[in-house]
């Protein structure tokens, strides 16, 4: 089977071809073409097929991760959006939750007011109202809808969001409005709030709907173009696109819910991390992983607990300061990367990031004009990144300049030794990442000791051991090809479609059969969707769950409600919620009434996963592969000392090789730093394991 993964990042587009018939995987990097990202991607596909003599027509699957949706939001490059909403509520998306983003600021901007997804002049109101019990209080004024659609057409909007109150209980008005709009303006892209995500909380739902309207036409055009161009290369496999929920979508799914692509890129990385941990964990044990994807400007952290990727609470998901109410993988992004700048502020306090030198001008060591010391420069100063290995020796690396700048800017003013200052830069960055990981583990009742830290991205392998030590994580993995793990993750995913129904019901008042019939309706809906995508029943899996809270609370926790399609007895759902509350918050209230807020169904269309290729067994002593030894500085228990450290090229290592720290294992797109208190073993699929 031949699977192709394409991940478009800010600087590079990674293409990953895996062919388990011949036990081969090929990684290819091309420059991203920001004006039309599909151009670079196509070149990558073409080149990787040439390199491997693979006729494009023989590819079985093509999976794609893209930042096109995210960039459209962050750069405010969506299309002009009109909104048709309930009379009396024109400004829901402008007022928001009336909370300022910052507590202590007069001069701040409020993102949803500063860059409205739809301008007030394009927000039309029409008489209609559904009540809180789902009944129609005011019938839809159809003439008003037609008139609003014509006015928006005249105003030149390309996309219309229909957002009515309580449509999550009764979508008939929204659905009818959509029909009318499509009659009036057949070319306009129409999104209704009940289609995007039928869940309560109007500001968040309306905003998500407007965002879908803003980016939908752009995303759809991009996907259509890309698919057409793949066809012209001779590719016959369907294009599938990574979604924020960790599943993959067909072109048709994306067309309806473009907003599900917002975290397409980082989601793939977490999947890749999960896949590598899965294969390196005995079948009898659950996979628990912390994924750390650290690049030039930021680090993304994700959690896999008991074989499942942890999802974010929909109340907390946001992109670019706008709430986005759709299922997403819980990804914590912090401003810590190889390019993060270290500086002393005007009172002399030591700071690292979030300002970043990025790829341009980059760290001082890269000699592209960077003048501020960065995290990468600290590694260079400590002797850990060497010119011999930097990008396979293809690029020059300045060694003295970073060290001198760290001395001048940081060490001398603080009265520190320059190596202490360089190690201090790393300690601050590592602590920031450890704190972010703690907020997703310790604070949620998960002990990091039971987790594997999977570190990847260009900078992840340099920080993995130190972060692992700080968290008391017992095992750390540096996957094979750590620079392109997102592309790897793309080849391990399944089709996924979520559906939801909001209902406010006290569990104890619910009848099991009533609940079953609600879920049956949702199941019928998602099955229909996946059948249309050609998923056969034997490849279709369902997950039925419910968002519950103690009656009166405002935050829900999601608990499973079934084995297969049959919902469990109500008491078992109640007990499962008590247990989930206890585990998340440290206490449960067994006697209190539980309210069921949302019924959820996730359908998976299982896709085959290619076997990971294996690397040859070691037949040599690892010492034979030491290229040279030199002084490298390490921070052990607060003492910064030079250790004579062997340097090894990762491509020389074979399954079964092991060595003790200190060591530096270099490869083309990253460097693995092994401190003196860590041991290394090379696993059968080429992953490197660090333990203390």
């Amino acid at each position: 089977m031949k699977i192709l993964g394409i991940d478009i990042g800010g600087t590079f587009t990674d293409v990953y071809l895996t062919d388990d018939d011949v036990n081969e995987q090929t990684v290819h990097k091309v420059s991203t073409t920001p004006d039309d990202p599909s151009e670079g991607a196509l070149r990558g596909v073409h080149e990787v097929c040439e390199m491997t003599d693979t006729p494009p027509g023989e590819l079985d699957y093509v999976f794609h991760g893209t930042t096109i949706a995210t960039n459209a939001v962050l750069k405010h490059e969506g299309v002009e959006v009109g909104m048709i909403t309930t009379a009396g509520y024109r400004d829901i998306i402008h007022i928001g939750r009336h909370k300022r983003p910052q507590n202590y600021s007069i001069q701040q901007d409020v993102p949803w007011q500063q860059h409205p997804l739809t301008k007030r002049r394009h927000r039309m109101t029409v008489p209609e109202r559904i009540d809180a019990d789902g009944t129609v209080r005011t019938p839809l004024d159809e003439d008003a809808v037609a008139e609003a659609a014509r006015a928006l057409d005249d105003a030149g909007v390309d996309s219309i969001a229909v957002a009515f109150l309580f449509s999550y209980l009764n979508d008939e008005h929204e659905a009818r409005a959509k029909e009318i709009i499509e009659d009036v303006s057949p070319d306009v892209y129409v999104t209704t709030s009940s289609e995007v995500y039928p869940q309560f909380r109007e500001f968040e739902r309306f905003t998500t709907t407007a965002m879908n309207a803003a980016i939908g036409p752009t995303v759809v055009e991009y996907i259509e173009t890309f698919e057409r161009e793949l066809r012209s290369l001779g590719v016959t496999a369907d294009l599938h696109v990574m979604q924020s929920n960790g599943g993959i979508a067909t072109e048709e799914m994306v067309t309806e819910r473009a907003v599900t692509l917002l975290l397409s890129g980082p989601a793939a990385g977490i999947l890749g991390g999960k896949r590598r941990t899965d294969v390196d964990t005995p079948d009898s044990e659950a996979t628990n992983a912390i994924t750390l994807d650290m690049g030039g400007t930021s680090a993304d952290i994700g959690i896999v607990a008991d074989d499942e990727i942890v999802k974010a609470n929909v109340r907390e998901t946001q992109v670019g300061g706008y709430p986005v109410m759709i299922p997403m993988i819980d990804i914590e992004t912090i401003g810590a990367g190889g390019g993060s700048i270290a500086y002393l502020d005007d009172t002399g306090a030591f700071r690292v990031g979030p300002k970043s030198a990025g790829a341009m001008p980059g760290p001082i060591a890269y000699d592209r004009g960077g003048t501020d010391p960065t995290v990468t420069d600290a590694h260079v100063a400590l002797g850990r990144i060497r010119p011999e290995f930097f990008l396979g020796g293809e690029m020059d690396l300045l060694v003295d300049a970073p060290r001198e700048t760290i001395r001048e800017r940081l060490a001398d003013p603080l009265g520190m030794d320059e190596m202490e200052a360089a190690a201090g830069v790393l300690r601050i960055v590592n602590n920031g990442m450890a704190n972010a990981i703690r907020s997703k583990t310790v604070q949620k009742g998960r002990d990091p000791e039971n987790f594997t830290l999977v570190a990847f991205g260009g900078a992840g392998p340099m920080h993995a051991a130190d972060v692992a030590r700080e968290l008391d994580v017992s095992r750390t993995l540096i996957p094979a090809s750590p620079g392109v793990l997102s592309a790897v993750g793309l080849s391990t995913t399944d089709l996924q479609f979520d559906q939801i129904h909001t209902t406010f019901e006290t569990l104890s008042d619910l009848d099991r059969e009533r609940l079953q019939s609600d879920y049956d309706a949702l199941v019928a809906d998602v099955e229909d969707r996946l059948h249309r995508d050609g998923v056969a029943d034997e490849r279709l899996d369902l997950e039925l769950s419910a968002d519950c809270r103690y009656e009166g609370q405002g935050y829900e926790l999601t608990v499973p409600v079934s084995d297969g399609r049959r919902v469990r007895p109500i008491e078992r759902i109640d007990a499962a919620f008590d247990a989930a509350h206890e585990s998340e918050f440290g206490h449960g209230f067994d006697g209190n009434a539980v309210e069921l807020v949302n019924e959820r169904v996730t359908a998976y269309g299982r896709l085959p996963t290619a076997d990971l290729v294996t690397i040859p067994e070691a037949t040599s002593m690892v010492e034979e592969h030491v290229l040279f030894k030199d002084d490298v500085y390490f921070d052990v228990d607060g003492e910064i000392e030079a250790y004579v450290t062997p340097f090894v090229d990762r491509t020389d290592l074979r399954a079964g090789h092991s060595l003790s720290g200190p060591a530096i294992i270099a490869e083309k797109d990253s460097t693995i730093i092994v401190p003196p208190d860590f041991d290394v073993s090379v696993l059968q699929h080429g992953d490197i394991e660090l333990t203390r």
Partner: protein
Amino acid sequence: MTDTADTAATVREQTAPLLDVDDPGDRIDPVTSRVVAGSLTNICDEMGHKLMRTSYSSIIRESEDFGCALLDERARQLCETDSTPLQMGPIPAYVRGVIDLFAERGQRFEPGDVVLHNDPYHGATHAPDFAVVVPVFYEDELTGFSVTTAHHLDVGADKPGTCIIETIDAYSESIRLDALKIVEGGERNKTAWQLIADNIRTPAMVMGDVEAQISAARAGAERMVDLFEEHGHETVKYAGQDAMNYSEEHLRRRIESLPDGTYSAEGYLDGFPESTDPDEKDVFLAVDLTVEGSSVDVDLSRCDDQLDNRPINMPFEGTVVPAVLLVLRSTLLDTEEHDLIPQNHGITRPVSVHAPKGSIVNPRFPAPTIARFCPGNRIADLTLKALAEVVPEQTCAGTGNLKISTFSGVTDDEYWVYMDITSGSYGGRPGKDGIDAVDTLYANTRNNPIEDIESHYPLRVSTYELREDAEGAGRNRGGAGTIREIEFTSPGRVSIEGDGNEYPPWGFAGGNEGTTGAIVRNAGDENEESLPSKLENRPMAAGQRLRLVGPGAGGWGDPTERDPEKVRADVLDDLVSRERAREIYGVILTDDGSVDEAATRERRQALDDD
């Protein structure tokens, strides 16, 4: 008590300086200092996360009217969570109040204690905001406090809810919790718990919320001990002191850059127009802010005397001081530019605030204080106005104050109480327009989703929109207020504690004043009735509506200097009418909606000549 009691330290000894040094920054390296500061903030975030997600009433879980902070053994704040400033600012005062009461009674902190406190004459901001104080011990020694505060829905006052404007003293506005050990040495005081529950109209919600406060405060205390174990007790203490010095130094530098002198502002607060007592009709407030070197002194002596029978008196430590500090922080160290400077005790050091006893800003016990919210936010607004004289580039024109309402009723023999906070608006700013429709100054809560309110209470939110043609005009216009209308679907009552109906927000640098707000019952009907901003438990029949109109904030700079394209955009957005554009901004639009430049020039000239 065990026989160690005789030799045990008193509360004064327990809270005496521990490991205090003049040079904390020299005793730890700058890297460790950053690392510890980051971890402290992380702990407060966890506390906030836990409290918000496990609480019951919408005022905490949706509005986020709660606070979390960690303090050192002297009740000096180390760090806080990211909720609303008015809940965090008073936390040190609460703890000082508890310490004072313990000292008076000869009590002390023991490991495992949980103290409940709400006395406005001992540091509380007002009685509905309960503090849960958990003392943090390390190696048997008191070394800090983990504290949560939250607004409770009903606190056993003589009327339902917490919006009360007719009451006579501190006993009638709340059950009094004076440094009460609700958990003593790990043992819950079930009798006290029952007593509190029995005196509250919505016991399940309120006691559930107290439970959530306790868990969050305990989690903070545990994490603080973990931090001592990880880095060493002394190191963490020095890092805390270093962070305070850091914030203090930044604020002092900014103050030092201002010219010495006294800057003043004065204004009125909506009083009780229907009252027969002339003192109650309007309330005069004045701020005299003196900059001297690196310090600021804020004198509030010119404010009116306290009102014995009206709960708009402001607790000095718990409301007035945090209001003043909030404004100094938000202007001189605006987080838009200074986001890395932590909010901690250091911010308070360069600032002194005073007011004579018996003043409305420093009342004598037992004057009632429960409705101190709007008056305190006016003190913040006037502090901003005084500062506008000396640092205009960091301020804004007058803000629109808020209205807080309590809706209540009895359905099936059970009380329901719902609290709603309307949006305010910010005045025009030196470089941009004011912010529309947000909580202002020392409040930063969140509104409740309409879909949540209507699903859980016999209420319908029938309108929620921006208010048109009411902005304070200016080169940079004031933010728009909101119109929020709520309808009763079954009979009940409403109380309102509001401001902004009598005096419009001030304009600045040639900008126009804003527009006053309003409260209207059954707007548009024959029996339409205009109501004052303070309203005590009015009965409402099913089908009756209450329209809450927020003020439009003040303008900044001459309206005729406003970019005509911005005026045009506001006209297209229906925020400003064509007539208003012409009359006030001097901008004439053509029929197709573009700016008629010649006519505009002429009109602006005419306005200038007038």
